[in-house]
């Protein structure tokens, strides 16, 4: 019985064992074809891609990759080569294919390789033979890195950009964390000391100039590694501060404007609450004011005392009549033109007509319509007030006869006044425009 039990237990464990192997095998079964992975990628996803292809744990591949860095940097060169040649999971072509099919990219790679090779030859002539293999591999790495940088897809680029904010990197560049500071200081000192030691060999050996060069670069690099984070964070703080200052400035401008205009008007309206006419007038002024400000905040506050176009002159009339007579003026301008003597005359006559309407018609709003056509300028001033009898206006009242009719005639135009008690008054001003303005 005991044996039986034991047998059963054995069977169970055996069973469990086999399922475990099954899952393990399913997990690590070699996968074809070789693809760079997207999910558990640290850099290009080459290691985990390789691991899947070969059916070995990802970590093993990664450790091998890191170790090979120390064999004349052959590891990184192979890594980058795989990065370029292997298609990323979910994409249709590799970085190498992409680069090859783009003329501009090919040119860039070509130019950079020429430059790097030229540099290498220059270093060799300076007498630097020690770094032979290492340097060639490094060159390869640089070119491959360049291809990755230029040719990676948008998706991959996002992934790489994400790396710069990963905990590992931020802890390195963070000015506060002790670990980052320690790592950085260590690296900085090692590189810097190496540079100094190279520099100190000057004069003792052949190829001294090359050591000076590399030593100086190394020293510089060391200093950079040591101080870069502080510099970066200072720049970042400065930008943030500037941005905040601009925001504050905007707010202040806005607040100042709202206070100067809207708040003042509201308090005036409260004081004039029992005078509907005054309230309407204030509200209208404020509305126009805000409209102009919204449309063009820059020019706001600079009164157009010298309007240079028809539209500006028309809005000037609107402003003047609304402010002085408390009657709304609604301006519509079609086409626009620079003001000259003749059109100024039309505007002046129109202004007179508008003021007349504001004073006498009893209408609450006046429509002003100006249209500039190539061959004529027309202006209509219309109110829906009480109308008046043109003939009944005494001759000595100069408004209509002299300011409107005669002025238009002097400039070669016409003025027609239509008025009736039912439909109000419309003053029509027309001025032919010479087709060749001198």
């Amino acid at each position, binding site marked *: 019985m005991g044996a039986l039990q034991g047998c059963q237990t054995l069977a169970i464990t055996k069973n469990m064992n086999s399922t475990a192997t099954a899952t393990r095998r399913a997990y690590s079964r070699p996968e074809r074809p070789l693809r760079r992975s997207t999910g558990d990628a640290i850099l290009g996803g080459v290691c985990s891609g390789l691991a899947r292809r070969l059916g070995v744990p990802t970590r093993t591949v990664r450790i091998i990759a890191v170790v090979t860095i120390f064999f004349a940097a052959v590891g990184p060169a192979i890594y980058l080569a795989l990065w370029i040649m292997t298609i990323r999971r979910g994409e249709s072509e590799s970085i190498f294919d992409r680069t090859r099919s783009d003329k501009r990219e090919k040119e860039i790679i070509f130019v950079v390789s020429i430059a790097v090779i030229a540099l290498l030859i220059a270093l060799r002539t300076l007498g630097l033979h020690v770094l032979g293999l290492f340097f060639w591999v490094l060159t390869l790495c640089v070119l491959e890195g360049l291809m990755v940088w230029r040719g990676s897809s948008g998706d991959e680029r996002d992934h790489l950009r994400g790396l710069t904010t990963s905990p590992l990197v931020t802890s390195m560049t963070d000015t506060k964390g002790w670990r980052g500071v320690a790592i950085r200081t260590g690296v900085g000192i090692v590189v810097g000391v190496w540079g100094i030691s190279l520099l100190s060999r000057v004069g003792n050996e052949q190829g001294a100039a090359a050591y000076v060069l590399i030593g100086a670069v190394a020293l510089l690099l060391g200093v950079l590694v040591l101080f870069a984070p502080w510099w970066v964070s200072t720049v970042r703080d400065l930008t943030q501060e500037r941005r905040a200052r601009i925001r504050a400035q905007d707010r202040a401008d806005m607040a100042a404007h709202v206070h100067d205009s809207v708040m003042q008007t509201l308090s005036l309206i409260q004081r004039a609450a029992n005078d509907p006419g005054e309230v309407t007038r204030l509200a209208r002024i404020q*509305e126009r004011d805000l*409209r*102009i400000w*919204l*449309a*063009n905040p820059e020019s706001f506050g600079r009164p157009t005392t010298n309007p240079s176009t028809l*539209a500006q002159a028309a*809005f000037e009339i609107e402003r003047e009549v609304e402010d002085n007579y408390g009657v*709304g003026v*609604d301006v*519509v*301008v*079609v*086409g*626009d033109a620079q003001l000259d003597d003749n059109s100024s005359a039309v505007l002046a006559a129109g202004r007179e007509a508008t003021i007349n309407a504001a004073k006498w018609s009893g209408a609450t709003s006046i*429509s002003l*319509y100006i*249209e500039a056509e190539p061959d004529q300028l027309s202006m*209509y001033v*219309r109110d*829906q007030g009480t109308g008046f009898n043109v003939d009944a206006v005494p001759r000595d009242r100069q408004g209509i006869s002299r300011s409107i009719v005669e002025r238009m005639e002097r400039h070669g135009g016409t003025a027609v006044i239509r008025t009736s008690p039912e*439909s109000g008054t*419309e003053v029509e001003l027309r001025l032919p425009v010479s087709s060749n303005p001198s």
Partner: protein
Amino acid sequence: MSPEKARVFMVDDHALIRAGIKAELAGSVEFIGEADEVAAAIEMIIERSPDVVLLDVHMPDGGGLAVLEGVVERDASVKFLALSVSDAAEDVIAIIRAGARGYVTKSIEGPELIEAIERTAAGDAVFSRRLAGFVLDAFTKGADQLHTTPSMLDPELDQLTPREIEVLRLIARGYSYREIATQLDISIKTVESHVSAVLRKLQLSNRHQLTNWATERRLL
């Protein structure tokens, strides 16, 4: 116009404005609902299918334009009358081209607004003075201002007939449809059909630069 009152839905994010308009139109139209935000407005308009939607142009989350686009893509038969404090050219052009049947400013008088709502409900177009001015400016002032070569323009859609120009000019001068009919010795129905034709041209015209034009001339 029609014996039944128009069923109106109002979209405006200011409760005060909604209350004011309702008070002014009370008895003349039938309010079947109101909304103060874009998403809710779209749902309720689709659900209740009003005759006319009174639409505020400036609201958070995309404004009247978002409501208009959201509703039109699901039910193109809803008629919109835009009602706004702003009559900046680019707002007007954008909202009309998106499918609104008319555009009036909030300073409009009660009776005129009622007339505009009835006209919209009947499927006609409602042009404010300023909108008429914009259209005249955009359609008659030559292609050079629009950076469009004349050959790109479709004469059917991109040009106004002399009669349409005449009608628009009278609207811009401040005439009501009735006054225009008297002035031109035609019926009000004819005036309405001219204005509807202009609206159609404004919406279908391939003057892609209409909005650019509007932005350039925003002060007018």
